[in-house]
Each structure stands twice: as structure tokens, then as C-alpha cells.
């Protein structure tokens, strides 16, 4: 098989070798049920306790403020539905126009059930209109859910500031921090965030494990009702091996952040971005470059279509993703790029590169060698390129 150059880490990441090693004994050696009376199960409960502490510590929370879930989407749904159930008289929900479908589509579904929803706009750089958000709040608002870092552009919202504003009005605040946790320092204690979603597979834990932070004292109603697991806040036997894996990944991420390990990632990202912009005319970055996740860049190549770029890169084993319509099976470019008002000429040809600490300089050099000729070739094929250049 061809060597893979994986720069699609906002989609998912490799399970870190240390994480896998930590998990393996929990499949066939320490396979006890943490709820059991015997110490064979009890030992697993002990390991889960440690994992919970690691996850809590990564985001500045208390261990008892963390519940384990199956994924980021479950965390988001749990948080938003808990708010609705806890405040049944409040019928107004606020979010942004650039959320992940886990929040966006839930809000759209709820709006069909009679909830009033506000989708706060962003500007051309993907920055949130905070005044608009504040003006939309009222006594009727049940929850405000704003993502921490955008999955497509990497733009970081000032969650500290927004959450304090929202909290000062006595309204619940939730943040989908799936893309931010493990990539940038987060300390929920210093913010007004009441609930926060994270997902393991975005920072080198396996798929199928997530967590929800619920600030102590926050009104809550469980989404999965069943056994007493997670102190009754999420029924269902624990996904023990994955919880152990998430704990280990959190520990690794915290160590990485403490050693400024992301400087390596952002340096590679900047090199990739800057060189592509230098080598390829009519290319531009989508999103505010001064306030971004260190691993993400979304670059628009005008007059070519994203799927074609991806599949040509695929021939060299380069894995990225696109904001174009054709890749997703929908016909319109991503709602994020449309919300930012990225023109069609650019939106259809937008490619997202998302790096991880496992990427190397050599890999970036290969992308820099292979991609410019691909863009040239597709532009020569495009009926718009010559016309645009003629003008």
C-alpha cells in the first residue's frame, strides 16, 4: 500500500500507540464490570476513576463534573436536551450559523417542534457577531450553544467572553469543544461554560467515546435513563476500554500542551499554508488567521472543484477534505463557508488540511510538491480559468 499522508485530523485521528497499549488489557484481561461487587470489577472502576481525573484535568474541571458518553454528538444532544427538560417553560434556543451538524441539525429539528431558534451570524472571517447574540437573549432563552473551535476553518470563538455574558443573564451556556479540546489550553473553571462536549477520536483516543462536562450545580436531566452508572446521569454499562483510552489520550494531550508541543504543528501548518499561497495564484485562506486552531487551515483554490482536487491528491496518498458540495453528496457548499459569505468561485474549491503531532516536515514537502501541479491541471481543464485570467 502507498504511504498515506494524513492531514485530515479534524475528521478523525490515529489512536496513539500509548493509548492502544493502555486499552488492550481491558478487553480480555481486566474485563470486569466496574459496577460489580468483586474486586475483579472494582479494579476497573479504579481505572475509570483515574481516566475521569485525567479528562477533568485536561479542561480544568473536577472529576465529578465529567460524564462519559459515546461521542461528541451524544454529548451535544445530552446537554441541549437537558437544558430544555430542566427549563420546560423556556422556548428559545441560541446557537451560531457555523455549528457542527450535531448541534445545527438538532436545533433545526427542535425548531420544527415549536422552539424558537436564533442562529447567530459570522462575518467574512468567520468571527461571531457577539452583539447580535446578546441582543437575542431573553427570559425565554433556555440555552446558548456556541462551538469553541470551528471544524472547517479552525476559527476559535471567544468562549470565555461570550459565556460570561450569557451567564450574567442567568442563561445556560454549552460549548461544543470537540475540535478544541487537546489542541488549545482550556480551563472551564475560568469561564462561564456550564456544559462542554468533547470527543476522544479527535485527539488520538478511539472512535465511540466522548465526554460531557457539567458544571457542579447545573440543572441536569439524563438523556439515557437506565442504571446508576455515571451517578445516574448516563445509564449503560461503561465502555471501559475506550474510557481508559480517553483518559490516556487526555493525559498525553495535557503533556503535549504543557510542552508547547503544538508549536511544531502550527509551524508545519503555517509552512503549508504560506507556501501554497505563494505558489498558487488565486488562492486564499478561509477564516480569521489570527485566531485559529493551530492545526487547521482551509484554503480556497478559485475556479476548481474540491472533489477533483481531493481525488487527485488521493492518487498520491494525501488525505484531506473539502468544503465543496460534491464530496458530501449535497449540492451546496458547506454551510460554514456560505455563512461566511465565501464566494461560490472559492467555496467549491475549498480544501481543509488538519494536521496532528504525527505529521512530519517531509510530508508537508510532498504536499507542497504535488498539489500546485494538480491545481494547474484542473484550472487548465476549467472553462472559467482562462476567462477569469483574461479579465
Amino acid at each position, binding site marked *: 500500500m502507498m504511504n498515506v499522508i494524513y492531514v485530515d485530523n479534524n475528521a478523525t485521528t490515529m489512536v496513539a500507540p500509548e493509548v492502544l497499549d493502555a486499552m488492550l488489557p481491558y478487553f480480555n484481561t481486566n474485563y470486569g464490570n466496574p459496577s460489580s461487587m468483586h474486586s475483579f470489577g472494582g479494579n476497573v472502576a479504579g481505572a475509570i476513576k483515574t481516566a475521569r481525573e485525567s479528562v477533568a484535568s485536561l479542561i480544568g474541571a473536577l472529576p465529578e463534573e465529567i460524564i462519559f458518553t459515546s461521542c461528541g454528538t451524544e454529548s451535544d444532544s445530552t446537554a441541549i436536551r437537558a437544558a430544555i427538560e430542566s427549563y420546560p417553560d423556556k422556548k428559545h434556543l441560541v446557537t451560531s450559523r457555523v455549528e457542527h451538524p450535531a448541534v445545527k441539525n438538532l436545533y433545526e429539528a427542535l425548531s420544527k417542534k415549536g422552539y424558537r431558534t436564533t442562529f447567530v451570524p459570522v462575518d467574512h472571517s468567520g468571527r461571531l457577531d457577539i452583539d447580535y447574540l446578546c441582543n437575542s437573549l431573553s427570559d425565554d432563552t433556555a440555552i446558548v450553544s456556541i462551538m469553541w473551535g470551528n471544524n472547517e476553518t479552525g476559527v476559535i470563538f471567544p468562549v470565555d467572553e461570550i459565556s460570561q455574558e450569557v451567564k450574567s443573564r442567568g442563561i445556560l451556556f454549552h460549548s461544543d469543544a470537540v475540535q478544541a479540546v487537546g489542541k488549545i489550553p482550556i480551563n472551564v473553571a475560568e469561564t462561564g461554560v456550564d456544559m462542554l462536549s468533547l470527543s476522544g477520536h479527535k485527539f488520538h483516543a478511539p472512535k465511540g467515546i466522548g465526554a460531557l462536562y457539567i458544571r457542579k450545580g447545573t440543572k441536569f436531566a439524563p438523556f439515557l435513563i437506565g442504571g446508576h452508572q455515571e451517578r445516574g446521569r448516563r445509564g449503560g454499562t461503561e465502555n471501559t476500554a475506550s474510557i481508559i483510552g480517553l483518559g490516556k489520550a487526555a493525559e498525553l494531550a495535557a503533556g503535549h500542551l504543557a510542552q508547547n508541543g503544538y508549536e511544531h504543528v502550527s509551524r508545519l501548518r503555517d509552512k503549508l499554508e504560506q507556501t501554497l499561497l505563494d505558489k498558487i495564484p488565486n488562492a486564499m485562506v478561509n477564516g480569521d488567521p489570527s485566531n485559529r486552531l493551530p492545526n487547521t487551515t482551509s484554503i480556497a483554490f478559485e*475556479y*476548481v*472543484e*474540491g*472533489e*477533483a482536487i481531493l*481525488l*487527485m491528491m488521493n*492518487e498520491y496518498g494525501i488525505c484531506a477534505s473539502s468544503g*465543496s*458540495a*460534491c*464530496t458530501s*453528496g*449535497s*449540492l*451546496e*457548499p458547506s454551510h460554514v463557508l456560505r455563512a461566511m459569505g465565501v464566494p*461560490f*468561485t472559492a467555496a*467549491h474549491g475549498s480544501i481543509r488540511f488538519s494536521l496532528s503531532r504525527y505529521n512530519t516536515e517531509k510530508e508537508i514537502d510532498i504536499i507542497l510538491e504535488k498539489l500546485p501541479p494538480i491545481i494547474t491541471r484542473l484550472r*487548465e*481543464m*476549467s*472553462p*472559467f480559468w*482562462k476567462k477569469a485570467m483574461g479579465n
Partner: protein
Amino acid sequence: MWEYTDKVKDHFLNPRNVGVMEDADGVGEVGSIACGDALTFYFKLDENGKIKDATFQTFGCASAIASSSALTEMVKGMTLEEAKKITNEDIAEYLGGLPKEKMHCSVMGRDALEKAISCYLNEPEKKVDGQIVCECFGVTDREIERVVRENQLTTIDDVTDYVKAGGGCGNCHDRIQEIIDTIRGSERPVKKKAPALTNLQKIKLIEESIEREINPTLRKDAGRLELIDVDGNRVLVRLGGSCAACAKSPVTLKHYVESRLRELVSPELVVEEVQ
């Protein structure tokens, strides 16, 4: 990831006949950058009126490029009469098939070919035929009707896959459904009304249906249904076996037994349980 055939991949990675043809006899342009794909198709005729050469320029995804490339290969050597007969299905078939969601790429090829032929024949630019149904992608009712007829489409999703209509805001979905219903309705043979059953026939049919259809199913759960009487359209039954003690038996009666009998015998039947 899309499952493209090897032929699609080949025509995408090694497209044939790319480029502008300066001395073309016919040129057809379709699509736009806003829509996400566009194709300009060129052809030139030889002295016998056959297509000697064809080229294209395409902005779009892999299947759009492959469909364009395939089209230029397919038409070579054809007379215009022959080329006119090429359908979008032919283009897809030439490529060994396209994912359903990508069929609009083959439709784009067909449309560009038609336009190029019209251009050569100096036919007046066809007026936008019909009324715009899909505002997002500028698709008319005539275009939707045509693609529904030619490809035997049955759902809104199908129409979106073939001509993109309905793939944006979704406001036109009702109108698209109407068009599908009209076309499908006119093709569907009018269902002959079943002749009225005599009482005797009706009772016999109910008995048969219970024995052949309903009881074998109920038996799987160790249940049984006994026909007590038929009074007009009222079917009086008694549940036996495990059904008698089952809390869900009223649901079974209404949702399963009654709907099955209505289907098999007569839509007017009402099932009632007697003790």
C-alpha cells in the same frame, strides 16, 4: 467516498480531448460556477457530416470531468442525427455506471451536446422552456418532466440526483412531487375496481385469509385467531393461544389483523374481538 468505476477513474485521471477548439462547428455551454459544475463542449464535422473531433472544458467533480471526457469519445464518428440520440443513460453506461447522486453529471453532458448541435444547426437559442421550479439551481418544470420520464424517476431525491432540482433550500419539493405524481399517475394503469363481493364470497375470503395469512404469522408467537361471525363489515373474532393473555393483543388486532384483512378482502372491514 464515492464508489467510482475504474472507467470513471480512468477518464477523470486521464481525461481525453481536453481543451478549447478554436475552429469548432458547434459549441455548447451548460452549468455555472455557482452550481458547482459547468461544461463547454466543442465539435467539428468532416466532409461527410460526421463528427471528426470533439473537445471539452469542465469545471466540476471527478464524475463531471469523466462524463465530459466520455462524451467526446462517444460522439466521434457519429452523424449529428446519431449524436442527437445519445441520452444521459448512455453516457453513464459508457462509464460503467455513475453513483446515483452523480447522475446529474451525465445529464449535463447530454445537455451540452444538444446545445452544441443546436448551435451548429443555427437553431434559435431555445427559450427557457417552461417555468422555473427550483430557484436555487434554476431548473424548470419541463427539464424535470423530461428527466423523470426518460429515467423513470420516482422520488424527489431521484430528481435532485439527476438535475439538482430540490437540492438547495427545499422549497420546491412539493412542486417536484406534483410533477412526479402527474407523470407517474398518467402512466400507471388505472386500477380496476374490484367487483363487489357477495356475502358468501366475503365470508369465504375472510376465512381463507385468516387461515393462510394471519394464523401462520400469529403462530410464530404461539397465538391463534378464530373467526366467530361476520356481520356486514364487522368481523367478529376471538383470540386464542398466547394472544388471549397478551397485553398487546388489541394492538395486534387493529394494526395487524384488521389492516391485513382490509388489504386482502375489503377496505371497509372492522375487526372486533368477542369474549
